């Protein structure tokens, strides 16, 4: 069952980048006018969902398997071969096995989701993803009733991933979600950007996108998805346990030891780009706050 969630911004349903750019100019103009009139709130919310350019999205990446510099993934990810590609779905599922990427795609309905992406390093982007809901993919394998968490694993192929020659973290990269987070309609597996196949540096051929969590939760180039009843290990928690816990929800009120999370800077604004306030759950509070009702988000950061 696709299309469980739609953007509040209806005029985003266009795909070609030129159309986005036209709309961007329109919106920037409108926002400026509204700002002068002194009622910026509504317009600002819209403004912040303007997608970043293809160049921003594909040339400023954290994908340490291809190097730790922001431009390393764009420079090195061409080495990655994504065909053939299979995703092993195992653990507490009815039909565990290796699912060919093509077979998954045939079974899924691709839709467009324009999401904010907030990196833990206090920068952000807006990305027009194409993909399908993770819930639909998990249902291909049939989630068993005892499952409580989903564990994810990125490909580890050192001959195609020069960054893995250094043990920056303990490879392969792993991540995890609670089952209700994984089944939430906002949680998708992205296979495209701007209607094109997702570039390697962005996590080809399919990557997780959880828009209310810091970017590192949205694990790239996924080869394995395991349903389990125990909280799975996550790479950054293993590397720096004091700095990263399991949830990693975007939260302007809980600072990371290295970066204040109160503000962020949207990529692509040039040398004089201004910081903007970070939103609770990255602006998806209405949709996801119920998942964490009664939880101490300062303790479970």
């Amino acid at each position, binding site marked *: 069952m696709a299309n469980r969630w739609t953007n509040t911004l209806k005029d985003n349903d266009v795909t070609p980048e030129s159309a986005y750019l036209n709309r961007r100019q329109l919106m920037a103009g409108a926002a400026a006018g509204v700002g002068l009139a002194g009622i910026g709130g509504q317009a600002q919310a819209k403004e912040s969902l303007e997608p970043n350019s293809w*160049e*921003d999205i594909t*040339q*400023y990446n954290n994908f*340490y398997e291809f190097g*730790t510099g*922001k*431009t390393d993934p764009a420079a090195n990810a061409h080495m990655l071969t994504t065909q053939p590609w299979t995703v092993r779905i195992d653990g507490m599922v009815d039909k565990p096995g290796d699912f060919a990427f093509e077979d998954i795609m045939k079974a899924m309905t691709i839709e467009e989701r324009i999401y904010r992406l907030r990196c833990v390093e206090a*920068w952000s982007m807006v990305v027009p993803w194409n993909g399908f809901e993770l819930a639909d993919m998990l249902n291909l394998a049939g989630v068993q009733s005892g499952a409580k968490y989903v564990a994810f694993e990125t490909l580890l192929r050192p001959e195609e991933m020069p960054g893995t020659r*250094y*043990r*920056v*973290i303990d490879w392969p990269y792993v991540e995890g979600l609670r089952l209700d987070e994984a089944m939430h309609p906002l949680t998708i597996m992205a296979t495209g950007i701007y209607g094109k196949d997702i570039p390697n540096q962005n996590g080809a051929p399919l990557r997780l996108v959880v828009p209310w969590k810091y970017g590192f939760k949205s694990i790239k180039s996924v080869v394995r998805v395991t349903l389990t009843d125990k909280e799975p290990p996550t790479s*950054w928690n293993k*590397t*720096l346990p004091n700095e990263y816990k399991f949830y990693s929800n975007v939260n302007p009120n809980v*600072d990371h*030891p*290295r*970066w*204040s999370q*109160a*503000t962020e*800077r949207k*990529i*692509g604004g*040039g*040398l*004089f*780009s*201004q*910081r903007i306030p970070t939103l609770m759950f990255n602006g998806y509070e209405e949709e996801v706050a119920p998942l964490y009702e009664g939880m101490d988000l300062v303790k479970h950061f």
Partner: protein
Amino acid sequence: MSLVDRINGFARKVPTWPLYIIYLLPVPWLLYLAQTGGLGREPIKALEHELGEIALQLLILGLTITPLRRYLGINLIKFRRMLGLLAFTYVTLHLAVWVVLDMNLLWSQMWADVWKRPYITIGMAGFLALVPLAITSNNASVRKLGAAGWRNLHKLTYAAVLMGGIHYIWLVKGIQIEPLIYMAVIVILLALRLPKRKAPQRA
């Protein structure tokens, strides 16, 4: 004439002022690149990184002067003040980029960062350690402090470089190789100026 003599002779002849200009050329060049997309999609961070890295390199170059003389007899001491002042200039620009372009003068957030983020705390300490050194990098101060006093004060350089190196190690995520290489070089250069231990006398 030996190579060392030739280097020393050449160093005696080269004036320092053109070197100031040459070493400051990266500043307009980086600003030009930042404006024209040459620093990538996020020019603010890129500029901050470049300036920080140049500052650290200059501080490290400053540390090579003493061992070069001590172990190889190469005398480049006349360039040491220049290296120090240039390093201070780059650290100051690095800090200015942080304050103005990166943090947009959000003073309360910056204040919190200085105390709460160890890598900022130690970077700031490194900067503060360099301030008295920059102020006293002139002949009048050397006279006023006396050679010994001046030399003692300028031992703060060692602390500043170490803090710069630690700052770099702490600010990267995970274990990355580049800051560790810088740190190794710093430690070696500092070890080279430890007083020579007298060889134990054989009975």
